């Protein structure tokens, strides 16, 4: 009998199988590490220790995860409305402009907690604005949103470089970046959070935007599964014809979903721009928008899953750093490859082991039923 429709308990589906897949990914990675001539076990220990072994490592891990939560949520919200937003990268980039302008304008005058709400709004508005045109083109002209959002990534990059290199740059400075924000434009670090667990954050840039990300995850959950708008988005995403039948306005829903998606992507900028480097730089997004796609897909577009997937990627980023710091042969490209393997095994090959688990489960469950 076929196994596809045999239900498995949630703890197997959502916990055990992904874990086993993760182990497989690491086994293959370990093989490559071994080929390169390093000890895979040592590398793994370094990775886990570097990412989770101390307060600072955890701080970095969560810092990276914060960005991925935002972009993951951004992708997921759009997916629920049936839209594949590949533009989170560009929307986040523009979001950086939004929050930087707020920070530059306010940091002289007010403390961070006054700046923050404006910065959130600023980042969200700029991110949303960058999503608006593709959304409008999709809604009104039927232009494929996958292409238009990719195009807008490519359009956003030159725009930002122009602004940073010619407009916002500090005269006499080499790097195309804004001036450093004063305290009033910086998001404070979460030392107290780590202190609660009796460890110190060290120099890790984990900051208040982590909490903002968690709040956003909750709000997205609320939006998708508890609000009428979320219901309309899901209807549209799952069956556009049923949405027409139900009187759900297509253009409006598409545009709103994309604005929310773009806004979430834009907020990602809070983390690196105001939380870490305290200035706007070229390329600060650094691919987090694309990682967001993987995070959303691996998290099954559910905020809780997204948080977990984002943390997994945070572990890889931070742990990878730690490994490459101590093992010269293992560099950032090895980490990139390991990420690929993790996405492959945990994401794309998620069903590979399912039949096996179904058989084992049935044997065990059967044995229990008999006895």
């Amino acid at each position, binding site marked *: 009998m076929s196994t596809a429709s045999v239900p498995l308990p949630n703890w197997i589906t959502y916990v055990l199988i992904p874990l086993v897949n993760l182990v497989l990914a690491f086994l293959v990675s370990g093989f490559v590490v071994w080929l390169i001539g390093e000890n895979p076990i040592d590398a793994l220990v370094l990775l886990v220790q570097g990412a989770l072994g101390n307060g600072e490592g955890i701080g970095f891990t969560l810092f990276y995860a914060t960005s991925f939560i935002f972009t993951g949520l951004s992708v997921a919200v759009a997916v629920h409305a049936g839209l*594949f937003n590949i533009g989170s990268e560009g929307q986040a980039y523009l979001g950086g402009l939004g929050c930087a302008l707020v920070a530059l304008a306010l940091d002289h005058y007010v403390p961070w907690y006054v700046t923050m709400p404006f910065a959130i709004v600023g980042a969200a508005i700029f991110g949303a604005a960058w999503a608006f045109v593709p959304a409008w083109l999709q809604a009104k002209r*039927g*232009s494929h949103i996958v*292409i238009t959002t*990719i195009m807008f990534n490519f*359009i956003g990059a030159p725009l930002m470089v122009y602004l940073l290199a010619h407009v916002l740059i500090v005269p006499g400075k080499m790097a195309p970046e804004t001036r450093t924000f004063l305290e009033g434009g910086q998001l404070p670090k979460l030392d107290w959070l780590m202190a609660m667990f009796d460890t110190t954050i060290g120099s890790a840039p984990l900051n208040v935007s982590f909490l903002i990300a968690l709040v956003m995850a909750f709000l997205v959950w609320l939006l998708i599964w508890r609000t009428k708008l979320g219901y309309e988005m899901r209807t549209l995403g799952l069956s556009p014809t049923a949405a027409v039948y139900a009187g759900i306005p297509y253009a409006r829903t598409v545009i709103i979903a994309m604005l929310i998606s773009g806004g979430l992507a834009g907020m990602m900028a809070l983390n690196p721009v105001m939380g870490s480097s305290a200035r706007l730089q070229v390329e600060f997004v650094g691919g987090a928008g694309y990682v967001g796609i993987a995070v959303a897909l691996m998290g099954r577009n559910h905020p809780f899953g997204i948080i977990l997937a984002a943390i997994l990627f945070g572990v890889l980023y931070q742990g990878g750093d730690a490994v490459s710091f101590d093992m010269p042969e293992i560099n950032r490209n090895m980490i990139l*490859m390991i990420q690929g393997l993790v*996405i*492959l095994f945990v994401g794309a090959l998620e069903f590979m082991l399912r039949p096996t688990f179904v058989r084992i489960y049935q044997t065990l469950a059967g044995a229990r039923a008999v006895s």
Partner: protein
Amino acid sequence: MMYYDTLISILGSTIRLSIPLIFTALAGLFSERAGVFDIGLEGKMLGGAFAAATVAYLTGSPWLGLLAAIGTSVAFSALHGFASITNRGNQIISGVAINFLVAGLTVVLGQAWFSQGGRTPQLGAEARFGAIILPGAESLRSVPIIGPLYANVISGNNALTYLAFVAVPLSWWILYRTRFGLRLRAVGENPGAVDTAGISVTWLRYRAVLCAGFLCGFSGAYLSTAQSAAFIENMSAGKGYIALAALIFAKWKPVPVMFACLLFGFLDAFANFMQGKAVPFIGEVPVQFFQALPYVLTCILLAGFIGVAHPPKAGGVPYTKER
């Protein structure tokens, strides 16, 4: 005449920039017409480029390099097939995974083998696809209008360029004139129909995906052994995504795919050419404007001219009989 020379130069550039797009978009065509989305074109192209450069360097033969590129790219296709066809995984995740994997792996191996920062050693002329001068190119050059066009745009390209233009009609012929093509188009629209007709959906989709790998091998080899003379980290630089855009732009049809790729190539070439030039009435425009121009124009074209593009109906959905 000045303007004509300029035009010739831009056309030549258009061709050079379009070739990897054409191969890659055709690759996407085979895969997606069979109902398997392929975001991993980028990665396959990159993997192909690495293999081609490595083998061409070691053997001194660009053709062996091409073979290696095809082999590598086909292997990644098989992986994509294993994940998304056999195991019914999400096709987009699988593609994204391959992109990450290849981006990292090529450099890791490159560094381990050549110690040049993930680059492969520079290839000599004999290990690359060199320009092929068509008969009469030199003598015809002086003929007005036609001459320069023939000598500078049509002649003087490398073997892969001509192969790309052979691949387009060939792909069309395969899709619309052969049994394989008929079945391939059917499985992308309604795999149930294919299955009940007694054809294996799995094997059919595998073959389509392998075709995609085959074609990506050419674009990879083009990048590292024709257009450049070495593999360099991430040298595909987003071309896989642009090829996908061209594919959608062309509504998943072979000949329009070629024109879409040429259009993208032309926009790119035009933007390169316009950089740093004064525009009448405006004066010098920031470089970034021209760098954004191809993408802006693409959006305008999409909005204005092509309307809704319907992907193959079963695209992106793994085939399952059971609900």
